[in-house]
């Protein structure tokens, strides 16, 4: 199976005391390409995850205003779902090899993002030397590419993630969940049948008990996200379900794992994103305004049990905030907006509080659901999730990064009213996250 090196551990900025990032202001994102979206794959080669990926790449290169031959690096997140997937040896559907050249991994382009498959199907990418996999999350690919450019290993690098969504329900009654036995590490929690959102819902419940909050207080955030997402012509909802939701819709949403309801769960879709990351020097010759990276940082699980704890989510999201501010040489008040992850919605506030976003002098935790009751819109003083996130656009874990780049470039479809000089994006969980600080200026 074709695979390429993954991100070296030594590239991680996962502790405090590392000082200003060595690449601060020397790396920028420029071109952005987004594929069309679909709810599920219809098994036609032309609508596959791989096909969407090629569309996104071509659009990103065109957006940057550069020649494909200038691309000398690719960082990809090979995993293209968090739900059910095909067996790796499943042959492609009939007609596939008439449309695409094949590599030795039969699911390449279908349920796996694959650099070699991209290269054989995009012969115009003639100069790709640097190839790396940012595994698990596109956030990892962004931080990996930022390091690779800062280290001089690539000067014009594609950052890529595709998402597939096959027929049938994302998890329910599929794969291991369908049998009467269960093997592998998922058995330690899987036997109890908790859906994916339940771990988050349990910690959200604890959070509410600790700070005197409740699930209803989430409603303004959920509604605002859909509003922001519907401004994005590339999002799933704007393309396929362009209807607003109301507070009443949210409050009457069916429970999945109470206190998580259907609106707290993001909708799986097919989509792909490609972004060009390059040196600050070369970015000047690209068409879009550069979105400079001021720093990046990582957290990884420290849990001792089958699920994380409230304490670990608070501890690690606090640490993320401190690491980002240290690496970028900024403080919480410098953030003009935040685009942290929201899939599931019920953990967004951990990221927000870790960054002290909109804290307004509040020293402790537990303020975020109160902030949601204030003006968190793109026209207000504290724009929360202006991208609309997964919840406003469909499940990808990339809308947040994409929008942070577009915001500081001044061309987001949901552009915030105040100047978007500095913003943050990161995915995914509060205890397992890769985040970046983006800036309109390298200084």
């Amino acid at each position: 199976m074709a695979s390429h090196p993954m991100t070296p551990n030594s590239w991680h900025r996962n502790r405090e005391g590392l000082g200003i990032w060595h690449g601060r202001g020397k790396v920028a994102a420029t071109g952005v390409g987004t594929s069309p979206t679909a709810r599920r794959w219809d098994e036609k080669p032309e609508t596959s995850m791989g096909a969407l990926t090629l569309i996104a790449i071509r659009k990103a290169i065109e957006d940057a205003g550069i020649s494909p031959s200038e691309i000398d690096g690719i960082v990809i997140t090979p995993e293209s779902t968090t739900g059910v997937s095909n067996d790796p040896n499943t042959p492609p559907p009939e007609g596939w090899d008439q449309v695409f050249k094949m590599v030795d991994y039969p699911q390449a382009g279908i349920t796996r993002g694959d650099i070699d498959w991209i290269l054989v199907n995009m012969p115009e990418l003639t100069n790709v030397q640097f190839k790396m996999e940012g595994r698990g999350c596109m956030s990892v690919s962004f931080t990996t590419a930022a390091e690779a450019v800062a280290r001089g290993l690539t000067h014009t690098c594609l950052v890529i993630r595709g998402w597939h969504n096959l027929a049938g329900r994302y998890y329910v009654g599929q794969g291991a969940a369908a049998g009467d036995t269960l093997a592998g590490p998922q058995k330690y929690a899987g036997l109890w049948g908790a859906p994916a959102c339940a771990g988050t819902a349990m910690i959200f419940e604890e959070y509410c008990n600790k700070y005197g909050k409740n699930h209803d207080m989430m409603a303004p955030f959920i509604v605002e996200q859909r509003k922001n997402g519907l401004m994005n012509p590339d999002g799933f909802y704007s393309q396929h379900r362009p209807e607003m939701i109301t507070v009443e819709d949210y409050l009457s949403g069916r429970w999945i794992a109470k206190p998580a309801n259907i609106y707290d769960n993001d909708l799986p879709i097919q989509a792909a994103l490609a972004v060009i990351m390059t040196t600050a020097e070369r970015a000047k010759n690209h068409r879009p305004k550069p979105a400079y990276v001021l720093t990046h940082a990582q957290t990884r699980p420290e849990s001792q049990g089958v699920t994380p704890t409230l304490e670990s989510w608070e501890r690690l999201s606090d640490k993320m905030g401190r690491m980002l501010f240290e690496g970028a040489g900024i403080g919480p008040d410098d953030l003009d907006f935040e685009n942290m992850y929201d899939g599931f919605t019920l953990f967004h506030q951990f990221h927000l509080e870790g960054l002290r976003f909109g804290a307004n002098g509040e020293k402790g935790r537990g303020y975020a659901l109160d902030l949601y009751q204030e003006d968190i819109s793109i026209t207000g003083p504290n724009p929360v999730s202006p991208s609309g996130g997964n919840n406003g656009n469909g499940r990808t874990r990339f809308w947040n990064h994409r929008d942070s780049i577009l915001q500081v470039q001044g061309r987001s479809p949901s552009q915030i009213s105040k100047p978007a000089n500095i913003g943050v994006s990161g995915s995914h969980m509060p205890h397992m996250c890769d985040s970046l600080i983006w800036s309109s200026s390298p200084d």
Partner: protein
Amino acid sequence: MPKQSPIPDELDKPFYDACNEERLVVQYCPACSRYQFPPRNACGGCLNPGIQWKQVSGRGRIQSRVVVYDTPVSVLIPDQPFNVATIALEEEPEIIMLSHLPGTPVEQVPIGAQVEVIFETTPATGQKIPEWRVVS
């Protein structure tokens, strides 16, 4: 609630063997005095490979809960809605195990209450697994 039967592997066989003897064991690192579960080949704290299995009291506390209305697991669908609670072990509250809290109705889960381990037989293979019930 009849659950799926877990298939033990080399790493967790001591845990499941102990369950069949109605004993609850979790991994313990003597080098840094750290408990961990699920099992790993080494201590997640200090990377010591000399990790041991240690019997614990089987007492814990209900940390949080959800009510599941839409489970992915086919054999549990007839029992919806049902509780899934997080149980923090007495010896180390960061060790979390899950429970359906047999005998406790949904919406009546006493957060913070003491629980004790019981062992439930899973139908497919007869493998026993830990469950938890509220201490009255």
